[in-house]
């Protein structure tokens, strides 16, 4: 196991570097930031000064060299927008998104596993129909729409929740619900499908012959066999939570990394984009290593040598 993690981390490091290089160039071909940071009527002289100061005058390979040199010294550069180190900005925003994900995903997984399994137990039954309908509803409603309707209904009309912002646990209810909606919807479907397959296997008959109760058949025997695709999709949804976070953070005014990322692209704040991608990528790589380890734990036939 140790050597597997070591090897994986090494590979991940390589692709992380590749990713960062890609982001560096991609970001830069979206255009120069100079006009965004200066008044529209700013003179050529001032514009030159700006470019000079931030090194945008230099050829791209020199800028790249500088970036790599900084990276080696763990310096991701200064944010143009905030005039502070990009790393600092990103690390301030990241915990909020991480918290959102850490609250949302376990919730989603528990809901999905329970609902999906129960639905698969009696395919075509009332519960199955209802669960499928609701989960598909969740999977196909735009989250910004839900967010705004949520605010209008729960905060404005019913007055049971605050509209937006952070602070009390109540403030987290709507954002988490909005964020959970799609992953939960998708996962319920995935759990249901793979449970159907697992439940039709021969070993389920054995368990029934042993007198194992239906709950244990579903949650002990079938679930673990049906878990591989569920883990895969769940990890994808976890990584994708940043997408939902963009919307949720925008609507609810959460100071997270999702909105920060989009804003910094809009603002051509290259250092922040790079730092943000690095941080999310790191998170995703860690998730994926954990996922692979989970595969092997869940299914003993999969071993990494």
């Amino acid at each position: 196991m140790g050597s597997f993690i070591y090897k994986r981390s090494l590979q991940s490091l390589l692709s992380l570097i590749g990713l960062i290089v890609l982001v560096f160039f991609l970001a830069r071909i979206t255009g120069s930031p100079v006009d965004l940071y200066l008044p529209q009527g700013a003179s050529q002289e001032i514009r030159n000064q700006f470019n000079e100061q931030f090194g945008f005058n230099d050829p791209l390979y020199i800028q790249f060299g500088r970036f790599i040199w900084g990276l080696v010294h763990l310096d991701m550069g200064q944010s143009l927008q905030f005039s502070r180190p990009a790393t600092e900005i990103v690390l301030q925003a990241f915990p909020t998104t991480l918290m959102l994900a850490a609250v949302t995903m376990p919730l989603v997984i528990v809901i999905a596993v329970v609902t999906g399994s129960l639905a698969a137990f009696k395919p075509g039954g009332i519960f199955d129909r209802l669960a499928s309908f609701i989960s598909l509803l969740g999977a196909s409603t735009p989250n910004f729409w839900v967010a705004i309707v949520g605010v209008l209904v729960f905060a404005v009309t019913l007055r049971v929740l605050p509209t937006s912002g952070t602070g009390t646990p109540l403030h987290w209810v709507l954002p988490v619900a909005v964020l959970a909606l799609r992953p939960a919807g998708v996962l319920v479907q995935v759990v249901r499908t793979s449970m159907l397959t697992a439940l039709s296997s021969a070993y389920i008959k054995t368990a029934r012959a042993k007198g194992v109760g239906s709950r244990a058949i579903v949650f002990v025997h079938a679930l673990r066999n049906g878990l591989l695709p569920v883990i895969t999709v769940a990890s994808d949804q976890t990584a994708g939570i940043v997408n939902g976070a963009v919307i949720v953070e925008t609507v609810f005014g959460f100071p997270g990394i999702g909105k920060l990322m989009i804003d910094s692209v809009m603002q051509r704040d290259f250092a922040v984009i790079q730092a943000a991608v690095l941080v999310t990528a790191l998170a995703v790589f860690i998730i994926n290593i954990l996922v692979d380890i989970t595969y092997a734990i869940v299914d003993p036939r999969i071993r990494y040598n």
Partner: protein
Amino acid sequence: QTKNSVTIVLPAGPDRLDPCETPRSVIGRIIKQNVVETLVELDYGNGKILPRLAESWEQPSPNEWVFKLRKGVKFHDGAPFDAKSVVYSVERTNDPKLTCIARTKYLDGTSIVASVIDDNTVKFTTKTPVPILPTLLAQLAISSPNTPKGEYTNKPVGTGPYRFEGWAQGASVVIVRDDSYWGAKPAIEKATYVWRGESSVAAAMVETGEADLAFSIAPQDATNKATDKVYPNSDTSMFRLSVDVPPLNDARVRKAINLAIDRNAFLGSVISSEAQLAMQQVGPSVLGFNPKLKPWPYDPTQAKKLLAEAKADGVDVTREIRMVGRAGMFANSNEFVEAAAEMLRQIGLNIKLDNLEMSQWLQVANKPFAADRQPNIFLTMHDNNSGDAAFTAFFKYHSNGRQSELHDPELDALIDKAGTEQGDKRVADYQEVFRRIYEDKVADVPLFHMVNFMRVGKRIDFSPTIANAVELQLASLKLK
């Protein structure tokens, strides 16, 4: 929430809180005249200059201005407000290491130098005569001499009625009343600024009492007459036409476009009914505004006729014309351009619509223009909240202006001249500039002087004005 504190919802959060950036509304609305003050204050309603930290001023020679400072004022950190601190602020603002907008937009090209005459007297020297120097100084916030030079600060220290308390990145900024303030003690003790991009959420926050004031909400969210108040935001929207590129180089085509857009139909639907039809780039409160210009009627028949005439003269009126908008330029701006494009298609023009993002939009907005560009109908929104047409005329219409499509030597001369005048002559010259552009050249398609809606909570007694486009003096808020 305690009784004397308020929460204010802004449409966007600040990226830094440096005093030298106060002309930017994301920053100015929080700290300008609240935390940091200026020597003089602009009365946005009529362009008059009022004393603030300076008690009086005079212009001993064309290139010199002398300002007498208020006595006994202290910065929040205890440093005395005196001539030295003013000089320090000017030097800091002029530091080329910072892109302070006070310098890059207002002081650039003036080579302004401040010097101490005595503790309470400062002299400003400029290279060339700057008749509107007090107007410029209304944009320059004075900050404590302990503010570091050569780098931005996020902890503004000024002389204002409020002290900067804290900034939670991405979440909120808090300022609290400073009881040692030199002037009258405002009613509000503490203000918390938060920001929400979604207008409906911002409006909801005030409705539910989570906030007391939402700075700008979309017209369709302004559904409550009692709380939703309209104010001109000093923005003027306009389609700029690429007058050099066929078929827009033909005045008849440009006239046809002006005639084909049913501006009145937009009012009360996509655009607030409180917005004013515009005939020029600056609003009525700006020095140089020409009140005599008449709006274009909506006359598609006439427009079609003009196009037919042009066509008969060999102008290719069916060439694809690119209409460029910008997502979120103003509330419903996407809908606006869609409808406008449709109106132009109605008279037979071939319009392709592009909604660009800020940076791309700037690329099209600014010179150098692409050599092989398509004919452009380019949506712009210009805000002149400095009260003087100088900040508009040159930049938008002079041959050397960065966003000017025109190169008319007579107009250039007129603009140059107006810039050096003072008083009524200055007003008259600028009015002539705008008339010439509008009537003679038909250089663009003026649209509206825009308004914003502010939702003011029930606890607060406040009516917004054009000043609130860039600042919100908490002192003017009254609790009911």
